[in-house]
Protein backbone atom coordinates (compact mmCIF):
# COMPACT_ATOMS: atom_id res chain seq x y z
CA UNK A 1 0.00 0.00 0.00
CA UNK A 2 1.40 3.40 -0.89
CA UNK A 3 0.80 4.92 2.50
CA UNK A 4 4.16 6.57 3.16
CA UNK A 5 3.30 9.46 0.86
CA UNK A 6 -0.28 9.88 1.82
CA UNK A 7 0.30 9.94 5.56
CA UNK A 8 1.25 13.58 5.48
CA UNK A 9 -2.10 14.49 4.04
CA UNK A 10 -4.66 15.60 6.59
CA UNK A 11 -7.49 13.91 4.78
CA UNK A 12 -5.79 10.57 5.16
CA UNK A 13 -5.37 11.04 8.85
CA UNK A 14 -9.13 11.07 8.76
CA UNK A 15 -9.09 7.38 8.10
CA UNK A 16 -9.56 5.77 11.53
CA UNK A 17 -7.35 2.84 10.57
CA UNK A 18 -4.54 5.20 9.66
CA UNK A 19 -5.10 7.04 12.92
CA UNK A 20 -4.80 3.80 14.86
CA UNK A 21 -1.51 3.00 13.15
CA UNK A 22 -0.13 6.44 13.89
CA UNK A 23 -1.33 6.31 17.48
CA UNK A 24 0.31 2.94 18.06
CA UNK A 25 3.60 4.37 16.79
CA UNK A 26 3.72 7.65 18.72
CA UNK A 27 1.95 6.78 21.99
CA UNK A 28 4.94 5.02 23.64
CA UNK A 29 7.18 7.98 22.80
CA UNK A 30 4.72 10.52 24.13
CA UNK A 31 4.18 8.54 27.31
CA UNK A 32 7.94 8.28 27.83
CA UNK A 33 8.61 11.98 27.29
CA UNK A 34 5.71 12.88 29.59
CA UNK A 35 7.15 10.71 32.35
CA UNK A 36 10.62 12.25 31.97
CA UNK A 37 9.23 15.79 32.02
CA UNK A 38 7.16 15.04 35.11
CA UNK A 39 10.22 13.66 36.90
CA UNK A 40 12.24 16.74 36.00
CA UNK A 41 9.42 19.13 36.87
CA UNK A 42 8.74 17.54 40.23
CA UNK A 43 12.46 17.61 41.05
CA UNK A 44 12.70 21.31 40.25
CA UNK A 45 9.49 21.98 42.17
CA UNK A 46 10.75 20.52 45.40
CA UNK A 47 14.22 21.94 45.13
CA UNK A 48 12.99 25.53 44.68
CA UNK A 49 12.65 28.06 47.51
CA UNK A 50 9.37 29.40 48.85
CA UNK A 51 7.89 32.77 47.93
CA UNK A 52 8.42 35.51 50.52
CA UNK A 53 4.77 36.53 50.31
CA UNK A 54 2.96 33.21 50.02
CA UNK A 55 5.49 30.99 51.75
CA UNK A 56 5.73 27.31 50.93
CA UNK A 57 2.23 27.16 49.51
CA UNK A 58 3.51 28.59 46.26
CA UNK A 59 4.38 25.00 45.41
CA UNK A 60 0.69 24.32 44.87
CA UNK A 61 1.00 26.65 41.91
CA UNK A 62 3.04 24.09 39.98
CA UNK A 63 0.01 21.79 39.84
CA UNK A 64 -2.74 24.36 39.95
CA UNK A 65 -1.68 26.61 37.08
CA UNK A 66 -0.99 23.82 34.53
CA UNK A 67 -4.28 22.10 35.42
CA UNK A 68 -6.19 25.36 35.04
CA UNK A 69 -4.45 26.02 31.74
CA UNK A 70 -5.36 22.55 30.50
CA UNK A 71 -8.98 22.91 31.54
CA UNK A 72 -9.24 25.79 29.08
CA UNK A 73 -7.04 24.29 26.38
CA UNK A 74 -9.01 21.05 26.44
CA UNK A 75 -12.21 23.00 25.86
CA UNK A 76 -10.56 24.80 22.95
CA UNK A 77 -9.53 21.46 21.46
CA UNK A 78 -13.12 20.34 21.82
CA UNK A 79 -14.38 23.52 20.17
CA UNK A 80 -12.08 22.97 17.17
CA UNK A 81 -13.26 19.37 16.95
CA UNK A 82 -16.86 20.56 17.19
CA UNK A 83 -16.28 22.76 14.13
CA UNK A 84 -14.79 19.68 12.46
CA UNK A 85 -17.95 17.76 13.26
CA UNK A 86 -20.37 20.41 12.07
CA UNK A 87 -18.51 21.76 9.03
CA UNK A 88 -16.54 18.82 7.63
CA UNK A 89 -18.60 16.03 9.22
CA UNK A 90 -15.41 14.34 10.16
CA UNK A 91 -15.85 11.06 12.10
CA UNK A 92 -12.57 11.53 13.96
CA UNK A 93 -13.70 14.96 15.12
CA UNK A 94 -16.74 13.33 16.72
CA UNK A 95 -14.48 10.91 18.52
CA UNK A 96 -12.11 13.70 19.51
CA UNK A 97 -14.58 15.93 21.31
CA UNK A 98 -16.41 13.03 22.88
CA UNK A 99 -13.25 11.62 24.46
CA UNK A 100 -11.80 15.00 25.46
CA UNK A 101 -14.73 15.79 27.78
CA UNK A 102 -13.89 13.35 30.62
CA UNK A 103 -10.22 14.32 30.46
CA UNK A 104 -11.10 18.01 30.57
CA UNK A 105 -13.43 17.40 33.49
CA UNK A 106 -10.63 15.64 35.38
CA UNK A 107 -8.16 18.50 34.86
CA UNK A 108 -10.79 21.07 35.82
CA UNK A 109 -11.44 19.06 38.96
CA UNK A 110 -7.71 19.16 39.77
CA UNK A 111 -7.64 22.92 39.19
CA UNK A 112 -10.67 23.44 41.46
CA UNK A 113 -9.39 21.14 44.21
CA UNK A 114 -5.85 22.51 44.29
CA UNK A 115 -7.17 26.07 44.07
CA UNK A 116 -9.38 25.35 47.03
CA UNK A 117 -6.44 23.90 48.97
CA UNK A 118 -4.43 26.98 48.11
CA UNK A 119 -7.21 29.36 49.03
CA UNK A 120 -7.76 27.96 52.51
CA UNK A 121 -4.35 29.04 53.94
CA UNK A 122 -4.22 32.22 51.81
CA UNK A 123 -7.76 33.58 52.10
CA UNK A 124 -9.01 31.58 55.07
CA UNK A 125 -11.85 29.94 53.17
CA UNK A 126 -12.18 26.95 50.87
CA UNK A 127 -14.31 28.67 48.31
CA UNK A 128 -15.44 32.15 47.34
CA UNK A 129 -17.94 33.01 44.67
CA UNK A 130 -15.73 35.34 42.70
CA UNK A 131 -15.66 35.62 38.93
CA UNK A 132 -12.68 33.36 38.21
CA UNK A 133 -13.67 30.54 40.53
CA UNK A 134 -17.30 30.63 39.52
CA UNK A 135 -16.57 30.60 35.81
CA UNK A 136 -14.21 27.63 36.21
CA UNK A 137 -16.89 25.84 38.19
CA UNK A 138 -19.36 26.54 35.39
CA UNK A 139 -16.81 25.06 32.99
CA UNK A 140 -16.68 21.94 35.15
CA UNK A 141 -20.47 21.63 35.06
CA UNK A 142 -20.38 22.06 31.28
CA UNK A 143 -17.91 19.19 30.93
CA UNK A 144 -20.11 16.97 33.07
CA UNK A 145 -23.19 18.01 31.13
CA UNK A 146 -21.50 17.08 27.85
CA UNK A 147 -20.51 13.70 29.26
CA UNK A 148 -24.09 13.11 30.37
CA UNK A 149 -25.41 14.19 26.97
CA UNK A 150 -23.11 11.78 25.16
CA UNK A 151 -24.12 8.95 27.45
CA UNK A 152 -27.82 9.65 27.14
CA UNK A 153 -28.00 9.29 23.36
CA UNK A 154 -27.88 5.95 21.60
CA UNK A 155 -26.83 7.13 18.16
CA UNK A 156 -23.20 8.33 18.40
CA UNK A 157 -23.43 10.40 15.22
CA UNK A 158 -26.41 12.38 16.40
CA UNK A 159 -24.94 12.74 19.89
CA UNK A 160 -21.76 14.15 18.35
CA UNK A 161 -23.62 16.82 16.36
CA UNK A 162 -25.81 17.87 19.28
CA UNK A 163 -22.91 18.11 21.67
CA UNK A 164 -20.85 19.98 19.04
CA UNK A 165 -23.50 22.69 18.97
CA UNK A 166 -23.48 22.84 22.76
CA UNK A 167 -19.68 23.02 22.88
CA UNK A 168 -19.60 25.97 20.49
CA UNK A 169 -22.30 27.81 22.42
CA UNK A 170 -20.44 27.15 25.66
CA UNK A 171 -17.20 28.47 24.23
CA UNK A 172 -18.19 32.00 25.33
CA UNK A 173 -17.20 30.91 28.82
CA UNK A 174 -13.51 30.53 27.91
CA UNK A 175 -12.70 34.25 27.38
CA UNK A 176 -14.75 35.01 30.48
CA UNK A 177 -12.53 32.68 32.51
CA UNK A 178 -9.33 34.05 30.99
CA UNK A 179 -10.10 37.71 31.52
CA UNK A 180 -12.28 37.52 34.62
CA UNK A 181 -9.36 38.47 36.84
CA UNK A 182 -8.72 41.61 34.76
CA UNK A 183 -12.33 42.61 34.21
CA UNK A 184 -13.53 42.21 37.76
CA UNK A 185 -11.72 43.02 40.95
CA UNK A 186 -11.40 39.61 42.56
CA UNK A 187 -9.50 37.78 45.24
CA UNK A 188 -7.80 35.65 42.64
CA UNK A 189 -4.49 37.06 41.55
CA UNK A 190 -4.12 38.24 37.94
CA UNK A 191 -2.16 36.36 35.30
CA UNK A 192 1.55 36.50 35.77
CA UNK A 193 2.94 34.22 33.07
CA UNK A 194 1.12 34.89 29.83
CA UNK A 195 1.00 38.69 29.53
CA UNK A 196 1.52 41.13 26.74
CA UNK A 197 4.43 42.78 28.54
CA UNK A 198 6.21 39.54 29.39
CA UNK A 199 6.00 37.39 32.51
CA UNK A 200 6.12 39.20 35.85
CA UNK A 201 6.87 36.05 37.72
CA UNK A 202 10.28 35.45 39.23
CA UNK A 203 12.69 33.35 37.10
CA UNK A 204 13.09 30.94 39.96
CA UNK A 205 9.42 29.93 39.74
CA UNK A 206 9.12 30.29 36.01
CA UNK A 207 11.25 27.30 35.02
CA UNK A 208 9.59 24.62 37.13
CA UNK A 209 6.22 26.06 36.19
CA UNK A 210 6.96 25.97 32.48
CA UNK A 211 8.26 22.42 32.62
CA UNK A 212 5.26 21.27 34.62
CA UNK A 213 2.95 23.02 32.16
CA UNK A 214 4.59 21.28 29.21
CA UNK A 215 4.46 17.95 31.05
CA UNK A 216 0.74 18.40 31.78
CA UNK A 217 0.04 19.40 28.18
CA UNK A 218 1.87 16.34 26.86
CA UNK A 219 0.00 14.19 29.37
CA UNK A 220 -3.25 15.56 28.03
CA UNK A 221 -2.38 14.76 24.43
CA UNK A 222 -1.16 11.29 25.34
CA UNK A 223 -4.37 10.53 27.21
CA UNK A 224 -6.51 12.10 24.53
CA UNK A 225 -4.98 10.06 21.71
CA UNK A 226 -5.19 6.89 23.79
CA UNK A 227 -8.83 7.64 24.65
CA UNK A 228 -9.61 8.33 20.99
CA UNK A 229 -8.08 5.00 20.09
CA UNK A 230 -10.28 3.32 22.71
CA UNK A 231 -13.34 5.04 21.32
CA UNK A 232 -12.54 3.92 17.78
CA UNK A 233 -12.15 0.39 19.05
CA UNK A 234 -15.43 0.71 20.92
CA UNK A 235 -17.25 1.77 17.75
CA UNK A 236 -15.64 -1.06 15.82
CA UNK A 237 -16.81 -3.55 18.40
CA UNK A 238 -20.29 -2.10 18.23
CA UNK A 239 -20.37 -2.16 14.42
CA UNK A 240 -19.11 -5.72 14.29
CA UNK A 241 -21.65 -6.81 16.89
CA UNK A 242 -24.45 -5.31 14.88
CA UNK A 243 -23.15 -7.13 11.85
CA UNK A 244 -22.98 -10.35 13.84
CA UNK A 245 -26.61 -9.90 14.85
CA UNK A 246 -27.62 -9.40 11.21
CA UNK A 247 -25.66 -12.43 10.08
CA UNK A 248 -27.20 -14.64 12.75
CA UNK A 249 -30.62 -13.77 11.36
CA UNK A 250 -29.70 -14.87 7.86
CA UNK A 251 -28.42 -18.31 8.71
CA UNK A 252 -31.27 -20.84 8.76
CA UNK A 253 -32.57 -21.45 12.23
CA UNK A 254 -31.81 -24.82 13.67
CA UNK A 255 -34.69 -27.15 14.35
CA UNK A 256 -35.04 -27.74 18.06
Amino acid sequence: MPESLAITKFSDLANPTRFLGLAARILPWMAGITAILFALGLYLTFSSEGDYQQGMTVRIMYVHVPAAWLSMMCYSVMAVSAIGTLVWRHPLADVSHKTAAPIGAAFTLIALATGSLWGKPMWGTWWVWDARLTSVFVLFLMYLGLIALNRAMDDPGKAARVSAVLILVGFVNIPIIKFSVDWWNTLHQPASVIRVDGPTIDKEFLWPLLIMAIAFTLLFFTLHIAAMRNEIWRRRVSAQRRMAARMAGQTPAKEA
Partner: protein
Amino acid sequence: MTALLLRDLKLSIRSGGGALIGVLFFMTVVAVIPFGVGPDLNLLSRIGPAIVWIGALLSALLGLDRMFQTDREDGSLDLLLMQEHPLVLTVLIKCLAHWLGNGLPLVIASPLLGLFMNMSEVAIGATMLTLLVGTPALTFIGAVGAAVAVALPRGGLLVSILVLPLAIPVLIFGVSASYAAVEDPAPFMPPFLILVAITMFFAVIGPIGAALALRNTAD
Protein backbone atom coordinates in the same frame (compact mmCIF):
# COMPACT_ATOMS: atom_id res chain seq x y z
CA MET B 1 -34.21 -10.96 44.42
CA THR B 2 -30.51 -10.17 44.36
CA ALA B 3 -30.81 -10.58 40.60
CA LEU B 4 -33.38 -7.77 40.46
CA LEU B 5 -31.18 -5.51 42.59
CA LEU B 6 -28.16 -6.15 40.39
CA ARG B 7 -30.12 -5.67 37.18
CA ASP B 8 -31.53 -2.33 38.30
CA LEU B 9 -28.10 -1.16 39.45
CA LYS B 10 -26.58 -2.14 36.11
CA LEU B 11 -29.31 -0.25 34.27
CA SER B 12 -28.77 2.87 36.36
CA ILE B 13 -25.05 2.88 35.59
CA ARG B 14 -25.18 1.98 31.90
CA SER B 15 -25.94 4.48 29.18
CA GLY B 16 -28.99 6.60 29.79
CA GLY B 17 -28.93 5.86 33.51
CA GLY B 18 -30.02 8.62 35.85
CA ALA B 19 -27.18 8.58 38.41
CA LEU B 20 -24.93 11.13 36.72
CA ILE B 21 -27.78 13.42 35.69
CA GLY B 22 -29.18 13.54 39.22
CA VAL B 23 -25.85 14.62 40.70
CA LEU B 24 -25.32 17.15 37.94
CA PHE B 25 -28.74 18.66 38.56
CA PHE B 26 -27.99 18.80 42.28
CA MET B 27 -24.73 20.69 41.67
CA THR B 28 -26.34 23.08 39.23
CA VAL B 29 -29.26 23.91 41.49
CA VAL B 30 -26.99 24.62 44.46
CA ALA B 31 -24.54 26.56 42.29
CA VAL B 32 -27.17 29.03 41.08
CA ILE B 33 -28.19 30.02 44.62
CA PRO B 34 -25.15 32.31 45.20
CA PHE B 35 -26.02 34.13 41.97
CA GLY B 36 -29.48 34.76 43.33
CA VAL B 37 -28.69 35.75 46.91
CA GLY B 38 -25.26 37.27 46.28
CA PRO B 39 -21.81 35.97 47.20
CA ASP B 40 -21.99 36.96 50.87
CA LEU B 41 -20.14 34.10 52.58
CA ASN B 42 -21.76 34.58 55.98
CA LEU B 43 -25.23 34.50 54.52
CA LEU B 44 -24.37 31.47 52.39
CA SER B 45 -23.02 29.54 55.34
CA ARG B 46 -26.17 30.35 57.29
CA ILE B 47 -28.58 29.13 54.62
CA GLY B 48 -26.21 26.39 53.36
CA PRO B 49 -27.78 23.29 54.99
CA ALA B 50 -31.25 24.29 53.83
CA ILE B 51 -30.08 24.94 50.27
CA VAL B 52 -28.22 21.61 50.07
CA TRP B 53 -31.29 19.80 51.42
CA ILE B 54 -33.68 21.46 48.98
CA GLY B 55 -31.28 20.74 46.13
CA ALA B 56 -31.09 17.08 47.15
CA LEU B 57 -34.89 16.90 47.41
CA LEU B 58 -35.40 18.29 43.91
CA SER B 59 -32.73 16.03 42.39
CA ALA B 60 -34.20 13.01 44.14
CA LEU B 61 -37.57 13.82 42.55
CA LEU B 62 -35.98 14.05 39.12
CA GLY B 63 -35.40 10.36 38.55
CA LEU B 64 -38.42 9.03 40.41
CA ASP B 65 -40.85 8.77 37.52
CA ARG B 66 -38.60 6.26 35.75
CA MET B 67 -38.71 3.84 38.66
CA PHE B 68 -41.53 1.68 37.29
CA GLN B 69 -42.09 3.42 33.96
CA THR B 70 -39.26 1.68 32.07
CA ASP B 71 -40.32 -1.71 33.36
CA ARG B 72 -43.88 -1.03 32.31
CA GLU B 73 -42.92 0.13 28.84
CA ASP B 74 -41.06 -3.05 27.95
CA GLY B 75 -43.50 -5.38 29.70
CA SER B 76 -41.18 -6.50 32.52
CA LEU B 77 -43.59 -5.14 35.11
CA ASP B 78 -46.29 -7.64 34.03
CA LEU B 79 -43.94 -10.52 34.61
CA LEU B 80 -42.78 -9.16 37.98
CA LEU B 81 -46.44 -8.84 39.04
CA MET B 82 -47.10 -12.48 38.20
CA GLN B 83 -44.32 -13.95 40.30
CA GLU B 84 -44.57 -15.84 43.51
CA HIS B 85 -42.51 -13.36 45.57
CA PRO B 86 -44.67 -10.88 47.44
CA LEU B 87 -44.98 -7.72 45.39
CA VAL B 88 -44.10 -5.62 48.44
CA LEU B 89 -40.70 -7.26 48.55
CA THR B 90 -40.15 -6.66 44.83
CA VAL B 91 -41.02 -2.99 45.28
CA LEU B 92 -38.73 -2.72 48.30
CA ILE B 93 -35.83 -4.14 46.28
CA LYS B 94 -36.55 -1.75 43.43
CA CYS B 95 -36.58 1.16 45.91
CA LEU B 96 -33.27 0.01 47.32
CA ALA B 97 -31.71 -0.22 43.86
CA HIS B 98 -33.12 3.18 42.96
CA TRP B 99 -31.69 4.73 46.09
CA LEU B 100 -28.27 3.15 45.53
CA GLY B 101 -28.26 4.41 41.94
CA ASN B 102 -29.75 7.87 42.47
CA GLY B 103 -29.84 8.77 46.17
CA LEU B 104 -26.42 7.66 47.35
CA PRO B 105 -24.52 9.71 44.71
CA LEU B 106 -26.33 12.81 46.04
CA VAL B 107 -25.17 12.03 49.57
CA ILE B 108 -21.62 11.56 48.34
CA ALA B 109 -21.69 14.83 46.40
CA SER B 110 -23.15 16.86 49.27
CA PRO B 111 -19.87 17.62 51.16
CA LEU B 112 -18.47 19.23 48.02
CA LEU B 113 -21.48 21.51 47.80
CA GLY B 114 -21.18 22.19 51.52
CA LEU B 115 -17.72 23.61 50.82
CA PHE B 116 -19.14 25.80 48.08
CA MET B 117 -21.71 27.15 50.52
CA ASN B 118 -18.92 27.98 52.98
CA MET B 119 -20.38 25.68 55.61
CA SER B 120 -18.30 24.64 58.62
CA GLU B 121 -16.94 21.10 58.83
CA VAL B 122 -19.47 20.14 61.49
CA ALA B 123 -22.36 21.48 59.43
CA ILE B 124 -21.14 19.59 56.37
CA GLY B 125 -20.87 16.36 58.36
CA ALA B 126 -24.32 16.84 59.87
CA THR B 127 -25.91 17.61 56.50
CA MET B 128 -24.32 14.55 54.93
CA LEU B 129 -25.48 12.35 57.78
CA THR B 130 -29.04 13.65 57.66
CA LEU B 131 -29.11 13.23 53.89
CA LEU B 132 -27.85 9.66 54.26
CA VAL B 133 -30.70 8.93 56.64
CA GLY B 134 -33.35 11.08 54.94
CA THR B 135 -32.98 10.36 51.21
CA PRO B 136 -34.21 6.74 51.50
CA ALA B 137 -37.47 8.17 52.87
CA LEU B 138 -37.76 10.34 49.73
CA THR B 139 -37.31 7.23 47.57
CA PHE B 140 -39.94 5.28 49.50
CA ILE B 141 -42.46 8.12 49.31
CA GLY B 142 -41.60 8.59 45.66
CA ALA B 143 -42.25 4.92 44.95
CA VAL B 144 -45.93 5.44 45.81
CA GLY B 145 -46.14 8.44 43.48
CA ALA B 146 -44.27 6.61 40.73
CA ALA B 147 -46.56 3.60 41.05
CA VAL B 148 -49.68 5.77 40.92
CA ALA B 149 -48.42 7.69 37.89
CA VAL B 150 -47.00 4.67 36.07
CA ALA B 151 -49.87 4.34 33.63
CA LEU B 152 -50.18 8.03 32.88
CA PRO B 153 -48.69 9.92 29.98
CA ARG B 154 -46.46 12.76 31.24
CA GLY B 155 -46.43 11.11 34.62
CA GLY B 156 -43.11 12.72 35.55
CA LEU B 157 -44.51 16.10 36.45
CA LEU B 158 -47.40 14.56 38.30
CA VAL B 159 -45.06 12.44 40.42
CA SER B 160 -43.28 15.58 41.61
CA ILE B 161 -46.54 17.27 42.51
CA LEU B 162 -47.84 14.20 44.32
CA VAL B 163 -44.63 13.54 46.21
CA LEU B 164 -43.47 17.02 47.26
CA PRO B 165 -46.14 17.64 49.93
CA LEU B 166 -45.48 14.22 51.47
CA ALA B 167 -41.74 14.93 51.54
CA ILE B 168 -42.11 18.09 53.61
CA PRO B 169 -41.72 16.37 57.03
CA VAL B 170 -38.48 14.80 55.84
CA LEU B 171 -37.22 18.23 54.79
CA ILE B 172 -38.24 19.86 58.08
CA PHE B 173 -36.49 17.36 60.32
CA GLY B 174 -33.49 16.92 58.02
CA VAL B 175 -32.79 20.64 57.96
CA SER B 176 -33.51 21.19 61.64
CA ALA B 177 -31.14 18.36 62.60
CA SER B 178 -28.43 19.87 60.39
CA TYR B 179 -28.89 23.27 62.03
CA ALA B 180 -29.01 21.76 65.50
CA ALA B 181 -25.52 20.40 64.96
CA VAL B 182 -24.05 23.88 64.52
CA GLU B 183 -26.30 26.12 66.60
CA ASP B 184 -25.52 25.53 70.22
CA PRO B 185 -28.69 25.50 72.32
CA ALA B 186 -30.65 23.15 70.11
CA PRO B 187 -29.86 19.44 70.64
CA PHE B 188 -29.02 17.35 67.56
CA MET B 189 -30.44 13.99 68.55
CA PRO B 190 -34.23 14.61 68.83
CA PRO B 191 -34.81 15.87 65.26
CA PHE B 192 -32.32 13.32 63.95
CA LEU B 193 -34.11 10.44 65.64
CA ILE B 194 -37.44 11.70 64.32
CA LEU B 195 -35.88 11.68 60.85
CA VAL B 196 -34.79 8.06 61.36
CA ALA B 197 -38.30 7.22 62.49
CA ILE B 198 -39.83 8.89 59.43
CA THR B 199 -37.54 6.90 57.14
CA MET B 200 -38.41 3.63 58.86
CA PHE B 201 -42.10 4.46 58.77
CA PHE B 202 -42.03 5.17 55.04
CA ALA B 203 -39.88 2.07 54.43
CA VAL B 204 -42.96 0.12 55.52
CA ILE B 205 -45.76 2.31 54.18
CA GLY B 206 -44.11 3.17 50.84
CA PRO B 207 -43.66 -0.33 49.39
CA ILE B 208 -47.11 -1.40 50.61
CA GLY B 209 -48.75 1.62 49.01
CA ALA B 210 -46.76 1.24 45.80
CA ALA B 211 -47.57 -2.48 45.55
CA LEU B 212 -51.25 -1.72 46.04
CA ALA B 213 -51.14 0.96 43.35
CA LEU B 214 -49.31 -1.30 40.90
CA ARG B 215 -51.88 -4.09 41.34
CA ASN B 216 -54.71 -1.68 40.66
CA THR B 217 -53.31 0.28 37.74
CA ALA B 218 -52.56 -2.83 35.67
CA ASP B 219 -54.51 -2.86 32.44
